[in-house]
């Protein structure tokens, strides 16, 4: 069992997801629920996924449930530049999001469980020809929640549940550095106090001149809580609510830099401050020799060094209703509020960089979002159950923050799925989900000098859609 848990953790760690929900949220945490558009706060699926969809749903469980599932994501999208009208496509592979739930009804009122899921995370991978590589070409944000859960039926109509989340966080950013946007050290070209430094672009270096590759990686484990309640008003009607607390990660990791050859040659003698660079000097040699020595492993600005940042997975509240109509039909509706305003500014700090040139402040300024889900389920007989649903949610990123890191926006999604009972204790779930994100204007670069971005920086359109396929096996014991 210990070995199995380890393998599952490794699987989670290796396969992050891309953008299935607003912000960097992921809602596809169970194949059954996915088939009905993620509804289920008032009536979670009986596969143990209540650990995520509403911890109170474990109360009253008869026997045990173990479910192992995976959601495959086929992500399509890209960025079309206004001027060139050329489209750069996302370079994401087929991704997989696993889920594991084990739940057990200890008594008729008390249920316990353990779940592994990843409600937040993203991966955006762009080709190195994309202008957005300077913001990040392979970016991973991963949060694996391990949630031991307990639920209790307080009264015949009210169940309460809660879990402690141990959250394993990892962030990874790979980006190229553009020499045109790089500041010339003020020791070489002094500027008046308060003035921005001179950029290499002012010496003619063209935008899009890669001169370094940056790899930032950091990990952090933190804790959060998850609570839920379900009120069964009648045999047919129930209401539910759940609240997932914010998880704050104070990441600490390492930044490594490698020089990328520009291949440029200085064509004529040129004065840079007090220094005259002779004609024929390779730019790459100039960057890596005194007085700059940018890549010197002990003293260079781009030496391997520590990096810190703080990221908050936002709190989320979901409210839901479920109503059993007749003849095996149940309709469900959920509303979700996610407090994305906690993802406001991203300070990437290099505490060992005395020059201060490396520190970055990314203004995200996300908006809180509302999402609406409707679903229906039809239990045709003891063997087959069919599901369908539709959901819509707002985009969290404001108009000025639609970037290669996370070019998200408002989405409409349709889902379908079914459960097939294979044998007395074994069931299989299959679901499909189509995500269509509204095309959205955005940018490929961050503002210079950590300035607050605005929509004037937007110079193209991001498009995005995805096909999700979910499959899981459940075992009742």
């Amino acid at each position, binding site marked *: 069992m210990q070995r199995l848990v380890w393998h599952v953790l490794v699987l989670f760690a290796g396969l992050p997801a891309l953008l299935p929900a607003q912000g960097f949220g992921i809602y596809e945490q169970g194949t059954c629920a996915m088939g009905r558009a993620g509804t289920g706060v008032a009536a979670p699926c009986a596969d143990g996924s209540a650990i995520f969809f509403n911890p109170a749903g474990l109360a009253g469980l008869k026997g045990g449930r173990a479910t192992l599932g995976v959601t495959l994501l086929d992500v399509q999208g890209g960025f079309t530049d*206004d*001027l*060139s*009208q050329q489209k750069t496509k996302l370079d994401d592979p087929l991704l997989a999001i696993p889920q594991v739930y084990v739940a057990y009804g200890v008594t008729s009122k008390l249920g316990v469980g353990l779940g592994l899921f990843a409600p937040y995370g993203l991966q955006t991978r762009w080709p190195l020809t994309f202008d957005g590589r300077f913001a990040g070409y392979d970016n991973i944000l991963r949060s694996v929640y391990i949630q031991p859960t307990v639920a209790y039926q307080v009264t015949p109509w009210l169940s309460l549940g809660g879990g402690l989340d141990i959250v394993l966080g990892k962030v990874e950013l790979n980006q190229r550095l553009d020499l*045109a*946007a790089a500041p010339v050290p003020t020791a070489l070209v002094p500027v008046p106090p308060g003035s*921005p430094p*001179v*950029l290499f*672009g*002012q*010496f*003619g*270096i*063209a*935008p899009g*001149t890669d001169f370094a590759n940056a790899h930032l990686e950091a990990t952090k484990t933190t804790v959060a809580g998850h609570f839920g309640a379900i009120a069964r008003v009648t045999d047919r009607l129930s209401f539910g609510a759940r609240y997932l607390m914010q998880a704050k990660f104070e990441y600490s990791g390492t930044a490594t830099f490698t020089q990328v050859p*520009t291949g*440029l*040659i*200085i*064509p*004529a*003698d*040129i*004065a840079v401050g007090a220094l005259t660079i002779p*004609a*024929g000097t390779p*730019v790459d040699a100039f960057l890596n020799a005194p007085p700059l020595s940018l890549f010197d492993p002990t003293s260079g600005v781009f030496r391997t060094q520590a990096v810190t940042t703080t990221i908050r997975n936002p709190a989320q509240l979901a409210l839901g209703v479920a109503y059993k109509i007749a*003849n095996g039909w149940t309709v469900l509706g959920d509303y979700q509020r996610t407090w994305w305003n906690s993802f406001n500014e991203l300070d990437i700090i290099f505490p060992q960089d005395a020059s201060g040139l490396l520190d970055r402040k990314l203004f995200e300024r996300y908006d809180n979002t509302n999402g609406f889900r409707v679903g229906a389920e039809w239990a045709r007989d003891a063997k087959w159950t069919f599901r369908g649903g*539709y959901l*819509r949610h707002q985009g969290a990123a404001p108009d000025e923050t639609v970037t290669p890191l996370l070019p998200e*926006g408002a989405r*409409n999604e*349709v889902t379908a799925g079914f459960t097939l009972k294979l044998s007395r204790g074994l069931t299989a779930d299959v679901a499909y989900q189509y995500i*269509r994100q*509204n*095309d*959205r*204007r955005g940018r490929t670069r961050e503002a210079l000098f950590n300035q607050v971005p605005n929509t004037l920086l937007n*110079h193209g*359109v991001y498009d995005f859609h995805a096909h999700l396929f979910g499959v899981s096996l459940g075992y009742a014991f």
Partner: protein
Amino acid sequence: MTQRRVVFAAGLGCALLVAACQNDVLNSPRVPAYQGGTMFQRYVAMGNSITAGFQSGGINDSTQRQSYAVLIGGVMGGNRFYYPSLNSFGCPPPFTNIFTGARVGGAGITGTTCLFRSPNIPPYLSNVAVPGAETIDIMNNGPTPGTHSNPLTQLFLGGRTQVQVMMAAQPTFVSAWIGNNDLLGAAQAGDTTLATDTALFRAEYAKMLDSINATGAGAVLIAVGLGHLANNVVLPFFSSGTTWFGAISSGAFAPAPISVAANCAPPRGDTVLVSFAYGFGLVATASGGTPVTLDCTAPPVIEPAETRFFATLQLKYNAIIQGEATARGFAYTDSVNVMMDSLAAALPAGSQFRPFPNVGAACSTFPFGAAFSCDGIHPSTATQQLIARKIVRAINAKYGSAIPNIP
């Protein structure tokens, strides 16, 4: 009944879905709306100092904006026309008085003053021209032997060539005006061997056009020159030996100890050209107390045979350009030379092309004539405007387009 409800619900769901899927209002690139405008969505200009916007012995943002290329880019109405804007006061700052050496920015500013480019770095360059560029420099940078790179080559192109920067801009239309320096440099030195020979000119020019062809862009090729040398139209940077003979003989530079040889006198002096730099260099030396003599047989003075050589070379260059344009289906225009011929002949005499500069006058009074800026070589703002009009007409005539007139 249940089936109907399901169908109704599904229909309602689809309607909601369609309504909800409206995209944001998205911008599209600017496509000029006039006839044939699609070709001019993204214009790139290649060339030398005239195209870059060099005036009065210097260049800065103010003069760059006066370039015919910027004017044409403006009326073409396509995507924004970006030039490598230089910080004030320029690199070098233009003269305010070429006779005193005063430049924009005042005290402390010299011909070696060179400020960097503006911090607003454009995403691409539309004006890729570099002052001093000859035909070989279109595809080559220093320190390759035979090239003519200078600090502006670095500041404008950043280690790339004009062709590389042109191609990076993904042009739909290109103008090329290159070759003037292949001739002018030799003329200033009074040495015909320094001129680019026609074989090299043809080869380098063809390479440039191959690159333009590779982009799929249309093009206009502009004939070498600012007037036809064969029509005895020369830049006011050059004055005849006769003119210098008259000025020195009449004591225009007295009491400086400068004299003039008899070989500068007419009729020979009428076909001899003395550059401003050489002639006034002698005057400056004499003003320092050192006696000097202007001899119209010694380099860099251009003697009659050399004048004929340069006039013929200009015709050969332009025949090559015209032949290439015809073969490749590009527009070709010699109308700028024709226009300059007219300006040189315009009355009152000397108002457009002064035969001898108005010594001591500030640049604001056009000491070389109204057609030229304060170095006697580069067109004035007004002439840049006339050049732009001529080129637009040539483009419209070739491509049947309706690019609006330059205001």
